[in-house]
């Protein structure tokens, strides 16, 4: 299998561990991945005003370039890139007049009409490779780890681009169970983490992250798993120490946990790149043997 993938700005800067672990996991699953050429920032947020077409130029230019490079599908790692690219794609599919105006501004030889399929890596893992195949590849099951999947908003909403049920998603639960972990859920899994408010209203983020971590602790979780680099930053840097003297919950990307279950070398998974150190938990739980013990 071959995929074209779009990294986006944060994957190349503060979320490098997401990219290295994702590429290592894809390699282990015999998926050839190619980073698309000449990508630009997607714009991060989808413009919601009816007349603000200029803000759709960034994502549409990305999709135009992929089409010029012969690609038909674009796979993202970041939830916000996924959402912005997919919503812009939907816009040019559903409103050709707006698509024409955007194409006119981009002024490339080739016009773009929404032909590229935008996918999140989680969809590739679930729909193409399959969690059963992933389960068969597991050599170090995550026994002893109780995982709290946190979905946030951009993976699920709006429904038109959501990759799972908007109210009761299960994709991360199913994936983590395939890896041998115990999974706990809570309705707060689909609430926004505070997002970009971390720049100028970080009290909002701190408040929301405190609630999310408290719910996860209450459900018995000892680790949080997610897919969005902004959720990751907020949960990793704004999580307070529990008032009962317990430990903060490490926050890992799903690709890092797949890598651990596959027995991939720890150094390829970027486990040392987190504000909340996951090593004490991982070693204490003996869920992932240091020397890659085969089960």
């Amino acid at each position, binding site marked *: 299998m071959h995929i074209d993938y779009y990294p986006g700005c*944060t994957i190349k*800067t503060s979320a490098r561990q997401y990219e290295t672990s994702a590429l290592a996991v894809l390699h282990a699953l015999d998926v050839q991945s190619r980073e698309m050429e000449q990508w630009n920032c997607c714009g991060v*947020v989808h413009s919601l005003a*009816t007349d603000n077409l200029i803000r759709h130029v960034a994502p549409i230019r990305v999709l135009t370039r992929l089409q010029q490079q012969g690609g038909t599908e674009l796979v993202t790692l970041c939830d*916000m890139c996924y959402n912005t690219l997919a919503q812009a794609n939907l816009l040019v599919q559903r409103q050709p007049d707006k698509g024409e105006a955007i194409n006119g501004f981009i002024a490339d030889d080739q016009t773009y009409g929404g032909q590229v399929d935008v996918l999140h890596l989680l969809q590739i893992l679930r729909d193409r490779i399959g969690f059963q195949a992933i389960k068969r590849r597991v050599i170090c099951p995550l026994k002893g780890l109780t995982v709290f999947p946190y979905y946030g*908003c951009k993976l699920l909403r709006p429904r038109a681009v959501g990759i799972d049920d908007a109210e009761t998603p299960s994709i991360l639960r199913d994936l983590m169970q395939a890896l041998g972990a115990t999974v706990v859920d809570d309705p707060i899994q689909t609430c926004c983490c505070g997002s*970009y408010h971390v720049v*100028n209203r970080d009290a909002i983020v701190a408040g*929301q992250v405190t609630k999310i971590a408290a719910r996860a602790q209450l459900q018995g979780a000892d680790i949080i798993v997610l897919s969005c680099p902004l959720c990751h930053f907020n949960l990793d840097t704004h999580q307070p120490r529990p008032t009962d003297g317990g430990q903060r919950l490490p926050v890992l990307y799903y690709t890092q946990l797949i890598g651990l279950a596959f027995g991939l070398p720890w150094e390829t998974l970027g486990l040392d790149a987190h504000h909340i150190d996951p090593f004490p938990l991982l070693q204490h739980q003996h869920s992932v043997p240091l020397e890659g013990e085969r089960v």
Partner: protein
Amino acid sequence: MIKITAREQPNELLHKVEELSGQNLFTCYQCGTCSAGCPFAGEMDLLPEQIIRHLTMGINDVLTSKSIWICASCYLCAERCPRDINMAKVMEALRQVQLRRNIDHVQIAHLPPEVLGAVPPMALVANFRKNTG
């Protein structure tokens, strides 16, 4: 006593918001589902359904409300609205009305360097796209 003047005189802001958002605010029946689910309702001075009511009634405190900047477009309200009003688009329209008057909500030059250096690029791009014109 409040004199209700909806639709009796030109309501330019309502017209502009409906145009920019593509939403018909008169379909709202004030059930409050938007506020009930909103993770940041507690931070808001006007709740989402109050914003709709104030807009349709021409009460001119909406643009100065901090709620329009608190909404982070998470779409929870939009997905749950039984009247299919996309409140995230209404909030965006209100922000746009302010930003198009050259009133930026965030002064980039005044942000502390330690914040700019610490947060991920996606947080900065998203924040500036929502808070500056």
